[in-house]
Structures are given as structure tokens and as C-alpha cells.
């Protein structure tokens, strides 16, 4: 019996609700309906009075969670899609993120952002907003890439006394399976070597970890050993693990699904360039999605985001150097 990435998110919320009466869930269509993606399936029935359907009011959803957190609650807010957090943006970056620093009052709010592209989702149901939130002080941004991390990092997020933006990738919901959720391996803030190698390092996160692994397989046929680092959380970013990997391989490709200006890949490359300049045998490279909104039609969507083919091509250039 195996468990999917989506089921792991559901199970983690089940556990969180079971372990701590202070936990409650607030979001659109998450009670009876179990959420647009069924990430809260049956939780309303299993935990009566602790799972709430919200009006379509993202600003107030986050505001309500913040006020509840001040009173010691540990709410989990589900955004129906990450893209809609744009209308909850202010409460997240200016209210939740500043509360502890301003008033010494912890703000243990977890905000789930169903993120990333899937075929046919279009410009407003596909966004990856981790860089937007990571830019603001006062937030922790996690980006699980595995079933195990989806589970353990969500549980840990709920326990963190600071606001956590939990970016779950919709592309992994159903496809990604594991035999079980395993045991907690790493805490938030530590990256993971998803695949050891010696010729080049790909530093990435979320769904792109799997594209990178496939590209690494492809290059393995040519005899290259590509190391893949899964950041797990983009803020904090585990720079030590990144630098250690680059020290081994001397080559860096920063890979992400978000828009190309700024963002996680720029942060990765600039950290390595600043702190491990002499470990680099080749100029560090970046690969992101294109600088346009995310297209609806699969023909365009597939070309908008990095793919195994473009990642492999980038790696070949990096290795050829």
C-alpha cells in the first residue's frame, strides 16, 4: 500500500489535528468537500468544529489565522491555489511576518500554497510564489519535493512558532508515490542530497527536483555523475550544503520553475559566487521558466518551464565548459 504526495499532506493535517487541539483548518471548500484537491478529505468529519469553509476572502482568511495565532492557536490556512494568495499578500508579508518582531508575539500560522504548473491550468492556477514571500523578513518558506517531506515538513511547519509558507506542488499530488511516509530525516533549514555526483551540482527544489533527477539519469548514460541538491526550504536556504556540493563538483546549475527575474535561482547563484567563487571550475548557470505568464495550452506550457531536455542541455553546456 503506497501513499501519494497529496495523501501525505492530508495525513499530516490529520496528525496535526490529532496531536494538538490548538490546530484548526481554515480555507475555501475544505470542510465537507475536502478541498479543491481533496487535501482535507474527511478531516471535517473526523474533527468536527475544527475545519472551516471560508468565504472567498483571502485577506481575511490570513487575518483571522493571525488573530487566532496570537491567542495560541496554530491554524493551517489553505489557499485554493497559490495564485490567489496575491490577495492575501498584505496580511502575510505585513501582518503575519512582522508580528513577532514588532510585538514579541509569536505567529504560528501555516499557509498552504498549492503551487506550480500543471497542463491546462493557465496563468492564474500555476504560479510559484516562493520568491515573493522569501523576499520579506519574518517568514519561513518550505518547498517539499518528496512524499516524506510533504508529510514531515508540514507537521514541522505547524510546530514552528513563526509563519510558514508551505509551497506544495500540484504536479506532484497524484504522480508522486512512496511506500510509506518514513521517519523524519531532516529538519526545516537543511537541504538534502537527492542524488550524489561528482561532475556537476544541480541545486533545485520542489517538482524540479524530479526533472533534475531524470536529467541526471540521462547524463549518466554519457558517463556523467550529476549531484542533485534538494533545498527543501528556500528560506532559510541551506548554503553550507550547497557549498559543500559545489566543492565536490566545481560546477553549478541553479534550477527553478518560477519566473526568471530574481527568485531562488538568483539567490543560489549569487551565494555560491560570493562564498565559493574559487570552488567553481565553470561559470554558474541558471535555468528558470520563461519571462511570460504561464500558458494554458500544454504545447506552450511544456516549453515555458524547464524540462528534462532543457535541463540536460544546460548541464551539457556546463560540463563542456
Amino acid at each position, binding site marked *: 500500500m503506497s501513499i501519494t504526495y497529496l495523501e501525505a499532506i492530508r495525513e499530516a493535517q490529520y496528525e496535526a489535528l490529532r496531536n494538538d487541539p490548538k490546530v484548526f483548518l481554515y480555507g*475555501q*471548500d475544505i470542510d*465537507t*468537500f475536502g478541498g*479543491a484537491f481533496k487535501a482535507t478529505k474527511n478531516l471535517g468529519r473526523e474533527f468536527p468544529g475544527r475545519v*472551516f*469553509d*471560508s*468565504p*472567498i*476572502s483571502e*485577506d481575511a482568511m490570513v487575518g483571522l489565522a493571525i488573530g487566532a495565532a496570537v491567542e495560541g492557536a496554530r491554524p493551517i490556512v489553505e489557499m485554493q*491555489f497559490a*495564485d*490567489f494568495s*496575491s*490577495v492575501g499578500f498584505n496580511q502575510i508579508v505585513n501582518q503575519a511576518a512582522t508580528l513577532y518582531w514588532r510585538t514579541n508575539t509569536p505567529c504560528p500560522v501555516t499557509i498552504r500554497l498549492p503551487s506550480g504548473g500543471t*497542463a*491546462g*491550468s*493557465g*496563468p*492564474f*492556477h500555476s504560479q510559484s510564489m516562493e520568491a515573493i514571500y522569501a523576499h520579506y523578513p519574518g517568514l519561513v518558506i518550505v518547498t517539499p519535493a518528496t512524499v516524506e517531506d510533504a508529510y514531515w515538513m508540514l507537521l514541522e511547519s505547524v510546530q514552528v512558532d513563526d509563519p510558514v509558507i508551505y509551497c506544495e506542488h500540484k504536479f506532484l499530488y497524484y504522480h508522486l508515490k512512496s511506500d510509506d511516509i518514513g521517519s523524519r530525516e531532516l529538519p526545516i533549514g537543511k537541504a538534502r542530497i537527492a542524488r550524489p555526483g561528482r561532475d556537476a551540482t544541480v541545486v533545485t527544489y520542489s517538482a524540479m527536483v524530479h526533472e533534475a533527477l531524470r536529467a541526471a539519469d540521462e547524463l549518466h548514460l554519457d558517463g556523467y555523475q550529476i549531484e542533485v541538491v534538494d533545498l527543501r526550504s528556500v528560506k532559510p536556504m541551506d548554503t553550507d550544503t550547497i557549498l559543500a556540493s559545489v566543492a565536490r563538483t566545481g560546477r553549478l546549475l541553479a534550477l527553478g520553475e518560477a519566473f*526568471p*527575474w530574481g527568485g531562488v*535561482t538568483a539567490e543560489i547563484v549569487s551565494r555560491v559566487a560570493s562564498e565559493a567563487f574559487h570552488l567553481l571550475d565553470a561559470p554558474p*548557470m*541558471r*535555468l*528558470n*521558466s*520563461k*519571462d*511570460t*505568464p504561464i*500558458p*494554458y*495550452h*500544454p*504545447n*506552450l506550457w*511544456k*516549453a*515555458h*518551464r*524547464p*524540462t528534462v531536455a*532543457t535541463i540536460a542541455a544546460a548541464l551539457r553546456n556546463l560540463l563542456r565548459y
Partner: protein
Amino acid sequence: MAGSLVPRLFVALTETHSTRAEASPQADFRARFLLAYQHMVLSRVLEEKLAALYRAGGRIVGGVYLGRGQEAFSAALGVQLRKGRDLYGPLIRDQAGRIAYGEPILDCVRTYLGAVSGPMRGRDGNIHRGRPKEGIFAMISHLGSLVSVVSGALFARRLAGTLQDGVGATSIGDGGTSTGAFHEGLNMAAVEKLPLIVSVANNQYAYSTPTTRQYACENLVDRAAGYGVAGATVDATDLAACLEVFDKAVRSARTGGGPQMVVGTLLRLSGHGEHDDASYIPDAKRKGSLSRDCLSVAEQRLRDEGWLDADAVRDLRAEARREVDLAVAKVTKEPLPDPFKENWQALSRADLAEGRYEA
């Protein structure tokens, strides 16, 4: 009137419509009723086809969102609008209103199928379509955000002196009224005294969420007074009533009455999308008074008035089916987007575009 080809038997009525100033109130009402009904039929048939294509799988990627049951409310507003001279910001369930406003059904089919020939060129899909320069806005997903945009277009026309008796109309659902964007937009429209009609289709659910979890007022029309705008309610399953209420609202907006809020009550007769069986809607509601199908209600009226007999209705549906099949057949042969032909630029000013570190 519809850009789609118009069934022969309606040409006359259509003309009556377009010259309605002279026509008698009764003839005028009859004409609009028949015209709206025609759009409702075409909309229903088109959406049934889309649903079928969705179930068949393969061709339609992403969701399909139907206006089933909301055709009367949507079309009744659409027939009041003059393409170009009036502005229209349709939302999720406005296929009938789109047809009535004059959006060719090819725009719909091409957008659902992602054809490059469509207005969205495969870049956006399904209900996220429009031709702003022709007066019909392309909604983004974020609910409520069109209210201020349509208001802004009216505002600019008034500034430029080109507004004349033009109006703008946009739709929202019971759920969308809970957004800050809806509130800010309608309040601003009221402050600017713009000729904006906001049609609120209260179909009892926002996706799976019942109105009890969406608002606490008696009726959403109770909000009109708080904005200082005119408010009206209507049984949205009754085309005749819808035509009346929108006729009044649009007239009032045209003649300086400021923003108008029209709240229609009905039940969503489909899932939120075709992926959704709406099993959360209790039988009581499914069988309740709100669950009347506006199309049957309209057909009953047609028969009662003797305006259209069963054969005519059958012909009309057949005609609509032919039109829809033609459109689908045509679009199915059209080219899909080609990533190598895309310019991949979000800016109109190519010289200001960046294109680094991309896939």
C-alpha cells in the same frame, strides 16, 4: 445581437429588436424574449458539446465551466448591451450573455481547444477569454477584480467624451461578493457615479460552499444601499422577469442613474466544473423551487404565449446543434500553438523585454 449565424426564423424579430424604438412595448418585449431565448438555446447546446468533449477527453485540457441554468439571467443582460458602445465583463457562467453580447461561439470553442486562431491564442483558456478592444473583457481568475476594470473603461470614456449613453456590465457570483476587490470596485463605481451594472448570480453555492458560509445578510441586494447604488432582485429562472429587471437597470444606468446591482436567485445546475458531481448539494435543494431550468420555463412561456410551437423549438435546437458542430469541426482542424512560433514576450515593447536564464 449574436455574431453567430442567426436562425432564419428570427431575422424578422431581430430587426424588430434593432429598431425597437419604434416598436410597440409588447412587440419589443416579444422580440427580446425570443432573441434571448435563441441565445440561451445556443449557449446550452454549445455547453453540452463542451461537456461531451471534456468527458471524451483528449482535446480539452483543463476544466470546463458551464452556465447551465443561468442562461436566462445571463442572456437577459446581454441582449441589453450594444457591442462596442457598451462594455461587458462576463464571468464564469456567462456563455449565454457572451453570445447575446455578440461574442462569436468560435471564440469560445477556439479558447477551450487552445487554437492559436482564437482570441487567447492558447495562452489562456476556457472562460478566461475576451477582446477588450471590442468591449468584452477577458476575466482573470481572481474574483471581483473585473468590477474596477470595467469601471475604469467607463471612466476613461466619460473623460474622453466618448461614453454618450454607453454602459458597462459585469457579473459576479454569491462567492465573489466576499472579495475585497468586489467591495472596492463597486464602492469606487458608486463614488464616480459610473453607468455600471453589476449582475450578481446567487446560485446558492461557491464551488461547494453554501451561502450560509459566504454571507450573513438576508439577501445580497441588501448591500446596494450600503454602496448608495440601486438594487433589484429577480427570480433568475424566469427569463421574462430577468428581461424586465435588466431593461430597467440598464435604462437607468444609461440615463444617469449610476451603478445598478441586480441580484438573481437560482441554483447552479451543474458542478462547479465538469470535474465536479456537486454531490454536496442536498436533494432538497436539487428538487427545490430554485432548481427550475430557465430554459424549460422560457419554453413554457413561449407555448403559453403562442410565440413558438414545439416544432419551432425543435428546429431552433437543431439549428444550434448544426452551428455548434460546424464550429467544433472547423476549430478541430485549426493549428494548435507552436512553442517555436511563440514570441515569448510579455511586453508590447520588445526592446524592453528581458529573456535571460529561461527554459
